């Protein structure tokens, strides 16, 4: 068997061949936060949900906020990668992998948040044994597990040729890569089957991804509660999910680029292009938010107005206006200007702002509606407890930890796809562009 010639892309194997002190410090810190979270969780298991800040009527808080937030982030990967692949966007080649990994990992944490929120986590499997399909929560379980399965497949398929490369280039880890490579040798026949499978998965995953955040929104929208019961919620949540997802991808790419010196693979142009997408999503987010709030305000139903006013001028107003600034003003300013968008720090700053803002948006959807029930209540305000904050931190840390471990096991930039781009795409794209022009012969169908 001929050994794969990695040639110019040997740098991409770097993270798997050697590990610096920085990596250990980074992962060690994350591990410490994760262990602290484990302690917080054991406290909650011992003493129940009384260790949270939840109460009547604010039955849901940080855990559900984080559930929506994490599931939202998951739209970074698979969905964006699938769209870029189908659109034959050539600049996708070095970024799809890092996006797909985000999806697969963060979905576990999204589902984990629901488990944290259960009063009886030991009975979680009742949703399988006694599932009630009129409950939007069951739609979530169905949709998210389909998305997780699809995303794992969609991450794995384009990994196969790279795993084969690792099998051939890293003899000491051969035992690990050989079974995963499924006997890949890169014959034209294998390549054809793989390309077909990736294309099919890319098409299938898009409607599943859209369904995921739609049904997450329906958990709220299907109730009759003020400012939850809204027809706009499905698309509003999907837009928010892609918005926060792209932000997460940009941040991840910037860290990878810096840590593994992949300046040559993750270039300012990649950030610029993702920044443009983020700009579009910023505008869409503003459009949806404006439409939602104006409709509520103009209709002026008293129970809805109580929630509306608690957000815009009441106790939640500092958070609300911070959200408007961080979801719209900051990213719009940074991304509409090509000077800041063209730089990596500009895109990263916009993305961090978007993450903060989108988390606030999720919080402001969950908590204010619950804080203002239709019938008068002894008002209890919700302040998240140390357990809830610790578990949030631990989830973020564990996600980053697993992501870092992934980069030590598999190339975070797809080696074969970059190589394919270098060897075939330039010609292909030239021919494709030529075929758009008048007088050109119809291209042969692929």
């Amino acid at each position, binding site marked *: 068997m001929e050994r794969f010639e990695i040639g110019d892309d040997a740098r991409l194997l770097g993270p798997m061949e050697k590990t610096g002190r920085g990596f250990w410090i980074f992962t060690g810190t994350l591990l410490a936060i994760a262990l602290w979270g484990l302690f917080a969780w054991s406290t909650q298991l011992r*003493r*129940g*949900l*009384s260790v949270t800040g*939840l*109460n*009547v*009527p*604010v*039955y*849901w808080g940080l855990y559900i906020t984080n559930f929506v937030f994490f599931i939202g982030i998951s739209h970074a990967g698979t969905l964006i990668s699938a769209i870029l692949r189908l659109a034959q966007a050539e600049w996708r080649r070095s970024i799809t992998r890092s996006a797909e990994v985000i999806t697969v990992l963060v979905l576990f944490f999204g589902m984990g948040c*629901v488990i944290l*929120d*259960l*009063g*009886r*986590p030991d*009975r*979680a499997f*009742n*949703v399988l*044994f*006694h*599932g*009630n399909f*009129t*409950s*939007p*929560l*069951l739609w979530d*379980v169905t949709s998210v597990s389909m998305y997780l399965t699809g995303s794992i497949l969609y991450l794995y398929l384009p990994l196969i040729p790279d795993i084969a490369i690792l099998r051939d280039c890293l003899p000491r880890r051969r035992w690990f890569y050989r079974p995963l490579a499924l006997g890949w040798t890169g014959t034209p026949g294998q390549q054809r089957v793989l390309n077909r499978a990736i294309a099919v998965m890319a098409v299938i995953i898009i409607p599943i991804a859209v369904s995921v955040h739609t049904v997450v929104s329906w*958990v709220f929208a*299907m*109730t*009759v*509660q003020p400012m939850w019961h809204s027809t706009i919620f499905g698309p509003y949540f999907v837009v928010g999910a892609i918005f926060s997802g792209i932000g997460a991808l940009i941040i991840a790419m910037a860290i990878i680029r810096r840590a593994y010196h992949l300046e040559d693979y993750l270039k300012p142009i990649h950030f610029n292009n993702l920044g443009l997408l983020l700009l579009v999503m910023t505008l869409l987010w503003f459009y949806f938010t404006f439409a939602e709030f104006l409709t509520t305000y103009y209709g002026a139903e008293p129970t809805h107005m109580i929630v509306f006013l608690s957000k815009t001028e009441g106790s939640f107003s500092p958070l609300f206006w911070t959200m408007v600034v961080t979801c719209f003003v900051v990213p719009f300013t940074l991304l509409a200007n090509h000077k800041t968008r063209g730089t990596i720090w500009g895109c990263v700053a916009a993305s961090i702002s978007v993450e903060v803002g989108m988390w606030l948006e999720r919080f402001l959807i969950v908590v204010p509606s*619950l804080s203002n*029930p*239709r*019938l*008068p*209540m*002894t008002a*209890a305000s919700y302040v998240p407890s140390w357990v809830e904050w610790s578990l949030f931190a631990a989830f973020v840390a564990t996600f980053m930890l697993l992501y870092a471990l992934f980069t030590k096991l598999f190339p975070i930039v797809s080696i074969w796809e970059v190589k394919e781009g270098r060897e075939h795409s330039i010609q292909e794209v030239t021919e494709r562009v030529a075929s758009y022009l008048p007088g050109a012969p119809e291209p042969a169908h692929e």
Partner: protein
Amino acid sequence: MARWGMVIDLDRCTACQACVVACQVENNVPPAGADLAEQGRAISWLRLVPFQEGQHGTRPGMRLMPLPCQHCEHPPCAKVCPVKATQIDHEGLVAQVYPRCIGCRYCTTACPYTVRQFNWQKPEFPAPMEQGLSPDVSVRPRGVVEKCSFCHHRLQRAKDRARAEGRSLREGDYLPACVESCPAEAMVFGDLDDPRSAVSRLAESPRAFRLLEELGTRPKVVYLSKGEWGGEV
């Protein structure tokens, strides 16, 4: 089959809260201390909610309204439960299956009346109360949702007695603890479908109204009042 419902005459109610206490004792609801009440975690299947009376009138005042589970015919809670732990049972009551509930609190957020309660912690009964627990009602474990059941264990008992006496159920055989305890006789309970029952006649009264009817939940608790009930406190 009967359609069990309750009428609460707010013009008779003195807000003495005897119903609240009777309910707590009858249903083994753990008494909450000041700390739990402050945290907003005191469990109460039947609570008194304050309403402002005569908001635009010359003599504004405050009135209290007893609020049990409304036992809706279209309960928003039952629809959203992911494990069918809350459903309309064969008697038309909205029942809660404690051993199946996973504690996700979707029902509590979906209920527009906010009458569903969650066991934030293990129920604690100070001595000697733990010796006086009702044997007919299970003590709920930590982490599950509970709510007013219209004392459905009393229905079971009433049926057993009627069967033993070889007769069918009569009006007044089955009364929830709150109704029984009301000194002002402001609460009436019975079969809304029986045209001769007091509860069905009162439900037809021009003073009758239901809470948040506009949401289409079809509550089986009917309130009576001459006054104007608007405006939150």
